[in-house]
């Protein structure tokens, strides 16, 4: 048996550390989740999940998280573009501002957004005049999730945008392409994998987000109640198996969706010959 030599030592060690921490922090809690929900019989499980209130919460959570992530796809690209391509005064300050949603306690963000967007708030009053209610509706939830998710898209797209070869754009125009054609055919394709990554991160975060949402959501069952809140409600009623079942279902759905997005990303990479 010949041992494979690698330039950097410590493959065994780093693999060990990885497996150990991933087990401790991710896998074991997940197993606990599964075992706890196994306490319920299939009938009870069905009963819990098929509840109309639970289904409505799933619908609210997934649709708002998706809408927010989708919106951030565009907003994030534009923000990253501006940060990378234009000489902005106080660029560093703008740049750090992007990360603020990461650092701000989410409850603070939630309360601020609620105050602003409630029907008599600074911004909410204008929407109210137009007959649009923002706070205490899924629209409000989406706004909170846009706030939370934006840095994910910006930060994943930014480095790729920075690495893009500006001369490819010049080459494209010299070959007769219009600005839109250059954007569509030369700029966008290399950005797609990063955009998808940013999207999936923002989406995943949006599904699990609790703090910033519960204030602006209003939490009306069937209308603006999100899954994480439902789980907390079940916990407060000491319905531990019920809470874990919902959590597990939410996880499974999220996992499947992330898997699909990753697959999509893999596909775009292969199509463009990068793997």
């Amino acid at each position, binding site marked *: 048996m010949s041992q494979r030599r690698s330039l950097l030592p410590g493959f065994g060690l780093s693999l060990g550390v990885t497996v150990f921490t991933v087990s401790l922090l991710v896998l074991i809690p997940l197993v606990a989740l599964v075992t706890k929900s196994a306490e319920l019989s299939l009938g009870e499980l069905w009963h819990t999940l098929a509840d109309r209130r639970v289904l409505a919460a799933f619908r609210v959570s997934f649709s708002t998280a998706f809408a927010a992530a989708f919106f951030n796809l565009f907003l994030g690209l534009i923000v990253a573009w501006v940060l990378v391509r234009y000489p902005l005064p106080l660029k560093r300050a703008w740049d750090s501002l992007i990360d603020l949603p990461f650092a701000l306690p989410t409850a603070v963000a939630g309360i601020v957004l609620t105050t602003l967007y409630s029907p008599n708030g600074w911004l909410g009053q204008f929407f109210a005049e137009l007959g649009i209610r923002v706070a205490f509706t899924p629209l409000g939830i989406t706004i909170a999730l846009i706030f939370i998710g934006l840095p994910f898209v910006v930060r994943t797209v930014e480095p790729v945008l920075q690495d893009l*070869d500006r*001369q*490819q754009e*010049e*080459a*494209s*125009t*010299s*070959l*007769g*392409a*219009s600005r839109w*054609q250059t954007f569509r*055919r*030369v700029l966008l*394709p*290399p950005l797609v994998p990063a955009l998808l990554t940013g999207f999936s991160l923002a989406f995943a975060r949006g599904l699990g987000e609790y703090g910033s949402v519960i204030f602006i959501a209003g939490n009306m069952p069937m209308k603006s109640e999100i899954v994480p809140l439902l789980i907390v409600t079940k916990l407060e009623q000491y319905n531990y198996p019920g809470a874990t079942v919902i959590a597990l279902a939410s996880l499974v759905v999220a996992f499947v969706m992330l898997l699909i997005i990753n697959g999509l990303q893999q596909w775009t990479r292969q199509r*463009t*010959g*990068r793997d």
Partner: protein
Amino acid sequence: MSIQVNHLTKRYGDFTALDDIDLAIDDGELVALLGPSGCGKTTLLRSIAGMEFADSGNILLEGRDMTFEPIRHRHVGFVFQHYALFNHMSVFENVAYGLRVRPRAQRPPEAEISRRVHELLDLVQLDWLAKRFPPQLSGGQRQRIALARALAVEPRYLLLDEPFGALDASVRKELRRWLRRLHEELHVTSLFVTHDQEEAMEVASRIVVMNHGRIEQVGTPEAVYDSPATPFVSTFIGSVNVLHGSLRDGHFDTGGWQLPIPNADLNSRSQNAFVRPHDIEIVRDASTPWPVRIRHVQPMGSSYHVEATPVTDTVQGPRVENDYLTVELTRQTFKTLALEVGEVVGIRVHHLHWFHQETAPALD
């Protein structure tokens, strides 16, 4: 007159990239813009392409003023130093790009696009790579694909910005010859930027020598080498020995050495004279008034470069730049002379050139 540049000036803040440039290029020419880095050659090329816009002056393409036309309307094919291929598209799609982005009415049908692309890939001898992606190709292959891509739109002018600058010496040599052959075949008016004088001499039919945003000389490779117009061109094209001294009574006087100059009857203040290494002969005859000591011998393959220090009994001695002369000898001559490092021999200067009213030579 295919490309005509009149009084073109471009500044970046305090830096003058182009200083009142006038240049005319005929149909079907292959011209090199040659100069050290920062001399403005790339800015000039990019201005002609429409990627930069000058502060004043104008650019005529086939007699039409195109100074402010965007690049799309200029019918130029541009080749970049670092290829600028679209890495997410196959080689085929890269070459097809210029045809695919045409307005629907002018876009050729798919079969026609395919035929044209394969024709161009055949021309650059890389049809077998059509399905690959640029990152999988070597530098030389990438540059040839970039050229095929530029030619796909049937440009009236081909502009190349240091096209071989990023390649290995051997690939470079091969591509140079190949570019010249391609030009002979296609006859598209071509302008390429280079800082490599050997490359300019080998490929171009005319050379534009630039320095500090100005044109120093325009001429055939032979002309710029044999009769340089300025001290800068003398030192930049080919190697040269610089002697400090003055013209006096038909001689060039440098610290005790009196070198004869044909047809020179003027007296002049202190200035420089330039001697090519192959214009100096080494003789074993101690009678010549110019003895030198052999300092170093460098075999260069087909020739030998000999470094020789002037030997003199006067205090100052001949004022030679770097304190030694470089003499280029053929292999044959070197073998016949059987020179030894350290020995003293004589030299004869066969040709020397100098400039009226010379300012300090630019040796950067």
